[in-house]
């Protein structure tokens, strides 16, 4: 296979996006077909590549060698192969699912165009062989995420959410770019492989490394919605549900984890940074889980759960277990996409009702959905023998090896996860139907249920060795095994199972048959007041500064300096005009005064 072959994976969605935007914008079916076809092509090509050899192919993009060089390069190795499969696989399923979900949307072509754009961008991140290129696609996924969140742009909430997502990500990217610049200053390259080769030969100070790694981590904090930049992800649920499934659950938000795994050679160099990363991760996990316990919107619960799971993965990176992180990323992609698509099916069936308290009793009416959702839930809450159980277990084990506190919090999060997912599950599927829509719920057409079923299967089996090992590839598998071999595996597994049982039981007992939430914790319900805090912060800093600056510009620079100076000139002129008062005698006097003064200054000084 030619090393240039992976380019096709990347370019097919771009071609689709471009054609849809420029040519087939008017035709709904053609656009949809094109988009789906492109993603299917990418999936097939990815499969082909997956079983092919590793390799790299690059073309120069910015070329100031020797000073500065940015190629566009695709790299195929274990990591990117895994990600390729996840992205194209879930992407394909979501595309197919969207055919139904977005059927009645008036701007369906735009939706598919943007979806293809997203596929292109995401695949770009996956394939990138250098930091600059990754940053490029990093920004582009931000763009496509913005476009897709804002798909229903006439809704104020959607528009606001889109802006919030983009801006929050930009803040993260600010740090990311700085990090890239720092690393580049030290190594003189942005290409990962060269960087990895050169880093050991340089003697960099610990401070520098910590700084650089943390700045790069900023990018991940933004994209993977870690505390404190997590606020955009729940709001992003304003986008169409397939988007939430694909972008805001399975793929894009995991890009941060992927990126950190990609540069783990760099992360490893700074223990301090690692600690920070791990703690940010676990903090996100715990906080998000707490918030999730009190949400009423089905998608928001899932969104917080995503946050929480991403926290796990980040923590895994922080405890030097990128393999574990990638493992969890892999399994999580399936079950979270499944959960979102399932939620989407419910929402679709209930005519865009998202409040779980207006659902209920759907287990019988939406059989396929119920079954697959169950599989997903079990995988997420770490039910033994489901995929999530294995991957989460590895992370907890890795955390245990590093720090007991991390482990304890991780365990607590697992418990909470079980709790809130059970809450969701029970409230949605059991009990009485609490609204008319819920009464008439029904399964979607096959294009909707089949992706659910496929994902359900994977949610169950993705954790098992024969799949996981293949998918993760030799190196990552080796890492995972290494964690297991480090000991205490049984203890951790037992504790995890215990957490699962306690959480599930708690949720079941508390919410069984409830018509409204028996627990009210304002702090959790209001998401720890992060939004309010930020709003105040933005109003207090940025907007205030902007107003002040505008005031300064208007009154100081334009007013005092520009208008003031020109006004002063005018006024001087106006004043001088009074010398010209028309009286001859006065002129003679001024003349004489001039003479005497000038003589004084010239002759006598």
């Amino acid at each position, binding site marked *: 296979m030619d090393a240039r072959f992976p380019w096709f994976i990347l370019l097919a969605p771009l071609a689709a996006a471009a054609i849809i935007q420029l040519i087939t914008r008017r035709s709904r079916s053609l656009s949809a077909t094109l988009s789906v076809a492109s993603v299917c092509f990418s999936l097939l090509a990815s499969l082909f590549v997956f079983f092919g050899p590793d390799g790299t192919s690059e073309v120069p993009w910015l070329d100031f060698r020797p000073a500065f060089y940015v190629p566009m390069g695709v790299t195929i190795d274990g990591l990117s192969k895994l990600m390729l499969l996840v992205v194209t696989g879930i992407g394909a399923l979501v595309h197919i699912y969207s055919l139904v979900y977005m059927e009645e949307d008036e701007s369906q072509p735009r939706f598919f165009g943007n979806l293809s754009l997203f596929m292109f961008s995401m695949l770009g991140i996956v394939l990138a062989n250098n930091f600059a290129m990754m940053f490029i696609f990093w920004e582009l996924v931000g763009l496509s995420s913005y476009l897709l969140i804002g798909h229903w742009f006439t809704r104020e909430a959607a528009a606001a959410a889109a802006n919030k997502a983009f801006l929050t990500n930009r803040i993260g990217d600010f740090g990311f770019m700085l990090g890239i610049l720092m690393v580049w200053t030290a190594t003189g390259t942005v290409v990962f492989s060269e960087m990895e080769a050169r880093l050991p030969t340089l003697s960099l100070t610990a401070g520098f490394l910590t700084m650089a790694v943390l700045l790069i981590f900023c990018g991940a904090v933004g994209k993977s919605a870690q505390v404190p930049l997590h606020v955009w992800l729940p709001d992003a649920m304003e986008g169409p549900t397939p988007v939430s499934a694909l972008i805001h659950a399975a793929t894009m938000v995991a890009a941060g984890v992927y990126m950190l795994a990609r540069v783990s050679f760099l992360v490893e160099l700074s223990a301090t940074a690692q600690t920070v990363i791990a703690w940010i991760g676990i903090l996100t996990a715990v906080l998000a889980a707490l918030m999730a316990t009190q949400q009423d919107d089905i998608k928001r619960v899932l969104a917080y759960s995503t946050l929480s799971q991403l926290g796990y993965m980040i923590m895994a990176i922080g405890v030097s277990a990128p393999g574990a992180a990638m493992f969890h990323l892999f399994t999580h992609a399936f079950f979270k996409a499944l959960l979102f698509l399932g939620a989407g099916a419910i929402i679709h069936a209930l005519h865009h009702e998202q409040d779980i308290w207006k659902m209920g009793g759907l287990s019988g009416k939406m059989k396929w959905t119920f079954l697959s959702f169950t599989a997903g839930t079990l995988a997420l809450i770490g039910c033994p023998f489901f995929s999530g159980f294995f991957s989460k277990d590895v992370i907890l084990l890795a955390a245990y090896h590093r720090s007991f506190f991390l482990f304890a919090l991780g365990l607590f999060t697992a418990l909470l996860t079980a709790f809130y997912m059970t809450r969701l599950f029970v409230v949605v599927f059991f009990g009485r139907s609490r609204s008319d829509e819920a009464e008439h719920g029904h399964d979607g057409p096959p294009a909707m249920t089949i992706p659910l079923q496929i994902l359900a299967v994977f949610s169950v089996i993705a954790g098992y060795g024969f799949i996981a090992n293949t998918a993760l590839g030799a190196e990552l598998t080796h890492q995972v095994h290494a964690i297991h071999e480090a000991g205490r595996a049984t203890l951790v597994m037992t504790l995890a199972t215990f957490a699962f049982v306690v959480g599930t039981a708690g949720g079941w007992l508390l919410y069984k048959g409830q018509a409204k939430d028996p627990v009210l914790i304002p702090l959790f319900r209001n998401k720890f007041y992060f939004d309010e805090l930020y709003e105040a912060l933005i109003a207090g800093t940025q907007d205030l500064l902007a107003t002040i600056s505008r005031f300064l510009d208007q009154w100081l620079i334009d007013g005092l300096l520009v208008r003031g100076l020109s006004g002063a000139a005018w006024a*001087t*002129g106006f004043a*001088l005009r009074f010398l010209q008062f028309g009286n*001859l005698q006065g*002129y003679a006097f001024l*003349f004489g005064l*001039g003479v005497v003064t*000038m003589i004084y*200054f010239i002759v006598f000084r």
Partner: protein
Amino acid sequence: MIPPLSLEIAVLLLGIGMLLVESFSKSDDKRGLAVTAITILTALVGFSFFTSGNATIDPAKAFYSADPTALFFKRIALITTVFVLVMALEYGSVLTKFIPGVTPGAGLGEFYSLPVFTCAGLMFMASAVDFLLIFVSLELVTISFYVLVAYMRRQSASLEAGVKYLIQGALSTGFLVYGITWIFGLTGETNLSAISQVLHTREIATVPLLFGIMLVLVGLGFKVAAAPFQLWVPDVYQGAPTPITAFLSVGSKAAGFVVLIRVLKPFVAVPGVGEKVIFVLAVMAGLTLIYGNLTALPQDNFKRLLAYSSIAHAGYLLVAVASVNKTDESIGSAGVAVAFYLAGYLLMTLLSFMVLIAVAKHSRGDDILHFNGLAKRSPFLAFAMLTAMLSLAGIPFTAGFIGKFLVFAAAVQAGKFVLVGIGIITVAAGFYYYLRVVAAIYWQAPNDDTPIVVQPITRCAVGVLAFAIFFFGIFPQPILNSLHNVPGPVVRSAQR
């Protein structure tokens, strides 16, 4: 080759001839007189290129020099007079309203012939290298201007201007004469070359010498409208008949500057005196720039605005004069800068006055608002005015820009950065008040829609001036050639 003095003689003969014809002809129509004068003067401009130098005379005994500078300024005088006469033709109908006369053309003959005599005076000034001739020719010019300024004696503004000019002019003459006295007394010479020799060979008491120089500077500063002796300018310019205002502002100023440069030449080289003279010139330049430009800002009367602008340009010229330096290269040399600036100034000032006359005649007023909507009433005049204003403001591709370019080059070369700084501010002020006219012409709607018609000869002159502004703004070389087409030193009078 024509002997140089014959130019002046021809002009004088022309003037006397005009007076004779005026006295003895029966015709009431004096237009022919002016047209003849215009033709002959134009021809003389041509002849001026074929004059021979006066290399044989001992410069220490000469009154009269026919060096290239002199010739250049003679041409300026001739050309100015030509255009002033064209303006006078256009202005004739206005003028006769304010002269008591029995016949329709009464007083016009003299009005056409006096500028010719003034022109002769200006030409003498251009050549004068002796205080005696300087004084006499200067007075010839001044006295004829007294008459011309007060010419419209039924209009009290004209008379008022005449009186103001008379008194202040006489005052300045008094200072000039007193200053000449001191210089003569100290050196025993009136000839500038001789003075220069004396200054080089003998010790002269510095304080009295400076005193004398200062007094002379007062007199000459008055003529070129340099602050603080500029107060007469706006009143006189506003009151005088417009062609005469133009003549004053171009001819008188040009001749004043050539005299100033010639007079200063012997002194700037004297240690202990030169620096102070340069300093006082710089101070005057700065004051003039500030006064002329800033005072023009709130001005609503266009004629008065041009008066302030005339002061302003005197300021730029003084900057060049104050930047006298050793370099002989063209760019950065003060002499070339002054000469070129004056040539450009001639074109743009005459053009703006010419348009002013045409517009004022039809709009019955010479405020800026009378120019409102000129672009609709007469696109040709509007464009001409635009050209003039651009050149006055110093926009590239106009002669005015090259002038400013050279002036500031000289100033930078001489390291006069304070002056340059003032210049920058005043140039910006200039943008404002010149473009106010452009704004009136192009932005505003006309107050009345009647188209403006001008005489063919005026139209032709306007066209020539506008073309010349652009032509010399792009191809300065002809003027440079004209500055040194005669063998001998370039305009180096300002240099040692």
